[in-house]
């Protein structure tokens, strides 16, 4: 048996969601619809807790300042502390890594011509911890090891949607060549439409977001061709984070001749602070089956 990717999860990672959870505000009328909307996803996750999560996210000027800006990075450490982003660290558990699988993925993906940066000292910010909180709730320890996979979507030049999509396919091949029977999920986070800066701050585009979800499910190969300017113009300057969802989508087995994934959950809500929130779960139909 080898490792395989059983499912992909997509979710926004708005910092205010972490604050609402940490301060016990989830029952407030403002937040209730959002957290209710994630209940089915949490229920699914309880029944489908994997052995490892590869969590694609972006660092928000936390570990990576302007000194070093890796386009694609992978955490190969045993553990990752929760960062102090300026408010003090979130009161959530430290993240346990999976150094063996991470090192294997780094090796395999680099052999496939994607030049990842290998990171061993990495404080994880809301980009990684908010998705875990949304899917797992507030446990005293996260339910499984996590491999952080930071992508630069802050400092241009940033990778294209196509590059992200192709990288996802390389990650799938890497996981499937790991000689241990592991159930792996890949999560793509960030988005959906939002802009945090300038007089255009507050931009939300429901139509764009819903089409993005439709195409991500059914026509990802075409979606990968969308240029950066379309995200900026239509989904706001920070909506560009959505390219990270294409990494997770690229790792699904339909892109290697498998059946189309089944949609286990789809949720969309406006707003969380400045942001449109999306959540999607896609499951491979033939987990464990070798192609």
């Amino acid at each position: 048996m080898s490792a395989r990717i059983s499912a992909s999860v997509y979710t926004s990672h708005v910092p205010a969601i972490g604050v609402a959870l940490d301060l016990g505000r989830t029952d407030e009328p403002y937040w209730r619809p959002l957290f209710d909307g994630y209940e089915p996803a949490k229920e699914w996750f309880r029944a489908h807790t994997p052995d490892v999560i590869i969590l694609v996210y972006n660092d928000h000027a936390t570990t990576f300042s302007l000194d070093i800006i890796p386009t694609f990075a992978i955490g190969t450490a045993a553990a990752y502390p929760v960062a102090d982003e300026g408010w003090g660290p979130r009161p959530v558990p430290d993240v346990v890594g999976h150094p063996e699988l991470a090192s294997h993925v780094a090796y395999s993906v680099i052999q496939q011509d994607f030049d990842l940066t290998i990171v061993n000292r990495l404080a994880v910010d809301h980009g990684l911890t908010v998705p875990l909180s949304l899917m797992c709730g507030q446990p005293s320890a996260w339910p499984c090891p996590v491999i952080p996979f930071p992508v630069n979507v802050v400092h241009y030049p940033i990778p294209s949607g196509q590059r992200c999509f192709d990288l996802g396919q390389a990650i799938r091949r890497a996981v499937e060549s790991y000689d241990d029977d592991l159930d792996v999920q890949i999560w793509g986070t960030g988005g959906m439409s939002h802009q945090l800066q300038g007089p255009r701050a507050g931009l939300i585009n429901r139509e764009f977001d819903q089409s993005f979800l439709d195409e991500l499910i059914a026509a990802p190969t075409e979606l990968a061709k969308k240029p950066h300017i379309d995200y900026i113009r239509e989904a706001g300057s920070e909506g560009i984070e959505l390219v990270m969802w294409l990494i997770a989508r690229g790792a699904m087995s339909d892109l290697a001749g498998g059946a189309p994934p089944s949609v286990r959950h789809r949720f969309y809500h406006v707003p969380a602070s400045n942001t449109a929130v999306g959540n999607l779960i896609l499951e491979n139909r033939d987990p464990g089956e070798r192609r």
Partner: protein
Amino acid sequence: MGIDKPYLDVPGTTIFDADQSRRGYWLNQFCMSLMSAENRERFKHDEAAYLDEWAMTADQKQAVLDRDMNRMIALGGNIYFLAKIGATDGKSFQQMAASMTGMSEDEYRDMMVAGGRSPDGNRFVHESDDPQRRPTAPGASS
């Protein structure tokens, strides 16, 4: 040949590219220093003195003292770095974003609850006479 910047045609938006990054290097690195509680205390105790420790321009220092987010962004600041100043002040991302739009915090929050700012009329600079002053609120053109 220069870098193609199609995003210059998007109103009310500054993309953090290599030129902005070069302009804002020390402004942003100052912001990074606020990730330690000790530095936040030192900054709050004497902001001007703390800023003088950094190789920032006088304009950048003044923009920080004024908490003028749009000015900081024009001078090379990036929102995720500038957010450390907001965090030091106890401000949320929503309060920081509102301060850049010319709206009050309540107006901005209401706009978001009503579905956010519409992209209609906000896609191209030519769609608005003065996008820096007149962002389109939801419902105004949709």
